[in-house]
């Protein structure tokens, strides 16, 4: 065996140095013959006789050279090279066929690769941490009554709880991290220009506990956490974009929220933090300065922050399970510690309360509890899978059609001595060529498509295809190549040698069996197409409904951006800053009105509250503690600026100050539900103890607050001047013309007011609302694309197959016409066949579509899974496409000239 391998390797090496070997060998032989001749001469022969004798003694040089050529390398390589050359020539001979096949493959495989990359990255990829199987995200089922939280309720823990878990839970490491703000971004400055960057405040064991190295400098140590050291580790991409990968970045100063931090390290390449779709730029140890309260929240009046308030749940946690301990064991052990620690800072556990439960989730790149996007991705994967199957069927049919035209060629080759193996090898080589071409184009397409998919689903972190994705694509390609090579093989083989001698007229009797296989493929394709189109129709209907939803406000012409004053120290200073800001922005040319808002409308953020009395009584008979409402904190002229109609009373005005009467504005739903009438102005709302009275001064029309799809809820608005400290507000600015065109002027203006405060997430208000449905929009658009793709594929497939069948039957048609068949009869004969196939396909496609739409039900909005219009459209669409695709060949069949057709045979 070893010997065989050695010989094969030697032959393989020689294959690439054939010409060198030729030259060397002839040198060697010439030398040998010359030496022989010299010897004979020295024995006394004449020079001429000696040469002749030498040649005789040596033997036949030509024969020897030929033998060597055959022996030095295997025929395999030269055969493959020949097959390749021949294959290329075949593909070039039919450029349209090649182009169609390559594009079909590229679209099918490329779309699959792109969707798979995203699905893999989102659902399966692990964080690049050391020994990832032992690292978990820590979740809780909630937090105890009496505590409060920022961030997602299932991923937030208190700092006190973190300490307890770390000390007593038996976990090897408990790692904590806190976003710097609700958006994850915070103002930083590395040179002169302030900007926004994403960062987390992390515990001292963040890098060491996760097992993430640094490519430069060091990670954090425990001392950094306990000292709240002003040091930072930056990410590879931040290093690249801001310091051009310069090695002397260590020791430089990065200003974060105007505080200087010394850069001590650059995190390992490929690590983008633990925040899923948001890649991080920097990490700092947990800080105790008031500016660095968790999530950018303002500290309490008494200076209380996340470090001191035990009821403030705001910290995300990960953990490393000790070696040799199972997840369940570790969880069971930690559960007790956690359930005790959860009640730190809470005076009394309420009776019958559900005690929070700890749970562990694998350390994937995305800590995804959001089933909807997982489901969307899986649905998309199924859709592109269908597209790929359709594409594959298409190429197989095209190949079979083409190869049937080559049957004569195959039989001649068989007749003159080609083995079946040779023909199989030839077909496989051609299919590998085709698939390689398609695969290369597909990879390029996939790279672009993945980027687009990532942008659409608002994932900033790296999704580019990696090794796993490449294996996925390669295995698809190999399977395709084998299918494409072997599917036409039987047809090619069945021809046999005798075919070479027959006339083509006899060949034209296509066997029933063969066309039956083709028919089955067409029917299956049409069925899949119906299912895809129904799915696409339902999702596009959803999209139409989403875009039609009335927001209840005029978002066009609104620019929104966040401002965080960097130099205000107290509540009064902060209020003065925002009041002055509003006045100065109002005076800007081109600005119609300006207001301020705490939770940016449409961004998904909301403050939820509950408990009230109206005029000292139960609100409209509802239990006071169960009267829930959403609220937002806004500036003067808010409803005027947003374009929300005021039904009764007035808007907030500059006269509503900290010292004037406390006022609120509510929406219609609030007024009807809790006051019992839309005439709510003049009523007073208090908390459940009858304290803190607020006068209702206005009722506004219901409108959307957190997102486009939210149901209407009771809403209340406060004036920002009359609530606690605010340190970030969004500015809503109604301008003439394109809001984004205003941005440079606003930036310049803001720099004059505060050079350290960047504009936070500036965008149009329309864009904010659109982003709230971006996932559904992307999903629907992609589904639409795949539906169209499927239809195009079906059309080309049907057209190709039918054209081919008609061309094969031209002799038969000629005979029919010569015997008196009318043109329309011929056309009908061809059309009838394809209509029948379409009919069967549709009938089989409907149950498939029913199953598919049931799976889609949860992704739909305002459309029923059994939407008749979508079904009708899909069926009519497929039928029309099938008719169009078969109409051309049918027309051609009808115009066959009988005498020409018969003579040609």
């Amino acid at each position, binding site marked *: 065996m070893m010997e065989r391998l050695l*010989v094969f390797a*030697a032959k393989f090496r020689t294959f690439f140095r054939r010409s060198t070997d030729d030259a*060397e060998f002839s040198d060697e032989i010439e*030398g040998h013959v010359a030496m*022989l001749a010299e010897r004979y001469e020295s024995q006394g022969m004449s020079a001429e006789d000696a040469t002749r004798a030498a040649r005789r003694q040596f033997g036949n040089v030509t024969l020897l050279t030929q033998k*060597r050529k055959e022996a*030095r390398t295997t025929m395999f390589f030269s055969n493959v090279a020949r097959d390749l050359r021949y294959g290329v020539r075949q593909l070039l001979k039919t450029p349209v066929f090649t182009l169609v096949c390559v594009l079909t493959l590229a679209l099918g495989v490329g779309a699959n690769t792109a969707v798979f990359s995203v699905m893999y990255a989102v659902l399966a990829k692990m964080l690049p941490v050391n020994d990832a199987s032992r690292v978990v995200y820590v979740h809780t089922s909630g937090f105890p009554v009496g505590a409060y939280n920022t961030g997602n309720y299932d991923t937030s823990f208190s700092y006190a709880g973190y300490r307890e878990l770390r000390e007593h839970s038996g976990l090897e490491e408990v790692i904590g991290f806190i976003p710097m703000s609700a958006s994850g971004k915070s103002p930083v400055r590395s040179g002169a220009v302030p900007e926004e960057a994403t960062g987390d405040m992390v515990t001292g064991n963040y890098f060491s506990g996760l097992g993430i190295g640094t490519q430069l400098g060091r990670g954090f140590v425990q001392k950094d956490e306990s000292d709240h050291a002003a040091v930072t580790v930056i990410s590879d991409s931040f290093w690249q974009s801001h310091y051009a990968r310069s090695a002397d970045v260590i020791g430089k100063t990065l200003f974060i929220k105007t505080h200087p931090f010394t850069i001590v390290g650059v995190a390992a390449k490929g690590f983008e933090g633990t925040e899923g779709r948001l890649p991080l730029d920097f990490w700092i140890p947990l800080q105790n300065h008031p500016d660095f309260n968790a999530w950018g929240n303002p500290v309490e009046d008494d200076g209380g922050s996340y470090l001191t308030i035990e009821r403030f749940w705001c910290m995300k946690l990960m953990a490393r399970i000790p070696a040799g301990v199972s997840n369940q064991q570790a969880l069971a052990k930690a559960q007790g510690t956690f359930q005790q620690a959860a009640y730190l800072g809470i005076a009394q556990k309420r009776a019958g309360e559900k005690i929070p439960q700890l749970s562990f989730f694998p350390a994937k790149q995305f800590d995804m509890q959001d089933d909807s996007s997982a489901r969307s991705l899986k649905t998309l994967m199924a859709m592109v899978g269908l597209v790929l199957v359709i594409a594959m069927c298409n190429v197989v049919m095209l190949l079979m059609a083409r190869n049937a035209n080559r049957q004569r060629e195959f039989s001649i080759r068989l007749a003159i001595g080609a083995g079946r193996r040779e023909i199989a090898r030839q077909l496989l080589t051609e299919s590998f060529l085709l698939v390689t071409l398609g695969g290369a184009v597909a990879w390029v397409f996939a790279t672009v498509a993945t980027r687009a998919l990532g942008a659409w689903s608002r994932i900033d972190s790296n999704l580019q295809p990696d090794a796993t994705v490449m294996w996925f694509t390669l295995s698809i390609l190999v399977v395709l190549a084998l299918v494409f090579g072997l599917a036409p093989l039987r047809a090619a083989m069945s021809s046999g040698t005798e075919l070479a001698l027959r006339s083509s007229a006899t060949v034209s009797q296509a066997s029933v069996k063969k066309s039956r296989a083709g028919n089955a493929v067409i029917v299956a394709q049409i069925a899949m197409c119906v299912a895809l189109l129904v799915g696409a129709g339902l999702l596009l209907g959803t999209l139409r409904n989403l875009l039609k939803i009335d927001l209840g406000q005029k978002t066009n012409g609104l620019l929104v951006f966040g401002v965080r004053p960097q130099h205000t120290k107290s509540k009064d200073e902060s209020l003065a800053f925002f009041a002055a800001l509003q006045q100065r922005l109002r005076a800007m040319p081109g600005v119609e009105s300006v207001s301020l808002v705490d939770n940016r409308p449409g961004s998904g953020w909301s403050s939820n509250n509950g408990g009230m009395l109206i005029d000292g009584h139960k609100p409209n008979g509802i239990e006071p503690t169960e009267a829930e409402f959403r609220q937002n904190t806004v500036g003067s002229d808010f409803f005027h600026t947003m374009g929300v109609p005021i039904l009764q009373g007035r808007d907030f005005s500059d006269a509503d100050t900290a010292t004037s009467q406390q006022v609120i504005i509510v929406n219609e739903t609030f007024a009807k539900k809790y006051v019992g009438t839309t005439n709510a102005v003049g009523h007073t709302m208090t908390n459940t103890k009858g304290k803190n009275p607020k006068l209702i001064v206005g009722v506004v029309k219901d409108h959307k607050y957190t997102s486009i799809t939210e149901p209407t809820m009771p809403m209340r608005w406060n004036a920002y001047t009359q609530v606690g400290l605010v340190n970030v507000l969004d500015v809503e600015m109604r301008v003439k013309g394109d809001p984004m065109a205003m941005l440079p002027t606003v930036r310049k203006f803001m720099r004059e007011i505060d050079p350290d405060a960047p504009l936070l997430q500036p965008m149009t208000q329309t864009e904010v609302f659109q982003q709230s449905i971006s996932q559904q929009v992307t999903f629907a658009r992609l589904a639409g694309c795949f539906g169209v793709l499927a239809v195009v594929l079906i059309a080309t497939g049907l057209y190709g197959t039918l054209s081919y069948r008609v061309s094969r039957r031209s002799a038969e048609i000629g005979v029919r016409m010569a015997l008196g068949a009318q043109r329309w009869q011929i056309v009908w004969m061809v059309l009838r066949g394809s209509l029948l196939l379409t009919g069967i396909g549709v009938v089989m496609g409907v149950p498939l579509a029913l199953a598919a739409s049931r799976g889609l039900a949860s992704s739909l909005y305002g459309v029923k899974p059994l939407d008749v219009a979508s079904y009708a459209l899909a069926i009519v669409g497929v039928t029309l496409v099938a008719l169009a695709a078969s109409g051309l060949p049918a027309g051609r069949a009808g115009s066959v000239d009988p005498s020409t057709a018969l003579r040609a045979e």
Partner: protein
Amino acid sequence: MGAEKSEVLQGTLDLMILKTLHALGAMHGFGIARRIEQVSEDVLTLNEGTVYTSLLRLQQKSWIVSEWGISDNNRRARFYSITKRGLKQLAVETENWERISGVISRVLAMEVEP
């Protein structure tokens, strides 16, 4: 050619070349041909070119390696030498040959039964 000369048996040439390289060290094709001619004392007839077919076969099996060098009479020539793998093979083949030739000679030595 005289009828008393014998054709070289297929495969034995390989063995002869291996042995020659083993006994005399690195040699070029011409030298190998001379050596075989000398040892066989004109009993074997050999088209000298055949040596090269054999050399290629041995090389592909990594039993010998070759290297360009300068011959005694100042000619550029390819020198062949035996490898470790070749030595092992030589031992195996020698044993084989001896066993078979022993059998053959015993068979040939059988007396005609009266």
